[in-house]
């Protein structure tokens, strides 16, 4: 568990806007959302880019993006013209956070100004900026974006495990994942035992400071 999320080196980033720009020749770039935004917002249920051939001024939305807890925008830090959109994410918005740097791209744009002037930076600089931002926002870089997230603390180990079990039973569907943030008195072996007993898959398990992060998948 760490605050360093995936930031591929083949593209530019604007950390404040959680957007990446991947060069596609000349002034053309492919754009999408960064992994930390996915971890904060969860899987998107609606992705609606502005139409092709629209000129978009800096600080205005390229796309509306909505999840169960986030109603926001992919905002461009530079003046751009939209030259293409990813039709597959319109039909299945979940792809955006399953593969944010690959098949989950949102749009192709022609940039109208110098990328450096727009505040776009390379991945090494973005890593430093994201480390600070993630710590500030309490974002831990998990292996997958969970469907649900819960902080569960308690006086006893059994109390915590019971609450996790109740949530998995009531809310989590087959194939979906629950990210639990917890701490002592529950321990990693307790969580592993619980997963075995209930038939849950553990997708990720680790510590960040004194907190334990675990992702269960209901199979």
């Amino acid at each position, binding site marked *: 568990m760490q605050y360093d999320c995936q930031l591929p080196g083949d593209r530019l980033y604007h950390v404040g806007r959680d957007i990446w720009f991947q060069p596609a020749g000349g002034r053309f770039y492919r754009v999408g959302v960064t992994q930390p935004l996915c971890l904060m917002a969860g899987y998107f249920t609606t992705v609606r880019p502005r139409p092709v051939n629209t000129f978009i001024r800096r600080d205005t939305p390229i796309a509306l993006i909505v999840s*169960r*807890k*986030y109603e926001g925008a992919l905002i461009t830090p530079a003046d751009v013209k939209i030259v293409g959109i990813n039709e597959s994410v319109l039909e299945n918005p979940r792809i955006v956070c399953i593969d944010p740097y690959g098949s989950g791209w949102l749009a192709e744009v022609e940039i109208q100004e110098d990328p450096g002037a727009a505040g776009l930076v390379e991945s090494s600089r973005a890593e430093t900026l994201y480390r600070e931002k993630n710590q500030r926002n309490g974002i831990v870089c998990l292996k997958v974006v969970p469907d649900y997230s819960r902080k569960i603390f308690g006086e006893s180990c059994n109390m915590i495990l019971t609450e996790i079990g109740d949530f998995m039973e*009531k809310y989590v569907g087959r194939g979906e994942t629950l990210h639990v943030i917890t701490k002592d008195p529950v321990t990693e072996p307790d969580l592993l035992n619980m997963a075995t007993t209930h038939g849950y898959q553990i997708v990720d398990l680790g510590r960040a400071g004194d907190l334990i992060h675990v992702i269960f998948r209901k199979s």
Partner: protein
Amino acid sequence: MTYANPNVLVEVDWLKNNLKTPGIRIVEVDYDPKLAYEQGHIPGAVLIDWRKDMNNPQERDIIDAEGFQKLMSRLGISNDSRVILYGDYNNWFATFAFWVFTLYNHQNVQILNGGRKKWIDSGGELTTEVPKVQPTTYVVQKINLEQRVFLQDLLKLKAANPSLALVDVRSPAEFKGEITAPPEYPDEHAQRGGHIPGAVNIPWGQAVREDGTFKSAEELRQLYQSKNVTPDKTVVTYCRIGERASHTWFVLKHLLGYPDVRVYDGSWTEWGNLVRFPIVKEK
């Protein structure tokens, strides 16, 4: 058929052209500002953090008149300011703020039709810049308690008024008692699931279109009248903690013009925790 009080709404296109009009204060109302206001808001908008700013920090209650005055002062709102509220998820928390503003008798308050979603979808500018505002002196001159009911009032109303229309605006799963809170808000629970006897279930979100704007007056009239929620009755709305109930209160009171609509903001987290109170649970 038009809305009973169309002046409670402003449209996105109008606001785009009036961002700098003097006397207007735009306010974003968020449940979680990290996921909304801090990511980008309408230029010039100030923030109401629903949990911290709208609620009493100690007792379970909304802020009192003094707290409201302090909040208005901090946000640069005067008694005569024109306030435009908006937020995410179909103005869920913005309409709660509207309810509080009218409870404290602020005269000129409106909702941005469609909220964040419509603003973003129409390409509206978003900034992360927090405006500097000049504190004001704000005085609450009247409190409109008739738009709110407490538990004891509700019991009296139910006993004295057999035709009371009690509207549970939560999801069908909450109404039936399958869950006690939506999965995104599982910490605000009741001990038991179900609904108050006599309540009808009209989920709050049915009042809005996919783009976040309110349905037409005729569509809204049909929605509520089909469940016998008619303007001749006293109507009480409730949900889990009172915020979704204020959305339906806004629709019934201001868009349809029902004369007597009240919010039971104790809602399910009060009723569902009471010992020996009747609960209907559907199987």
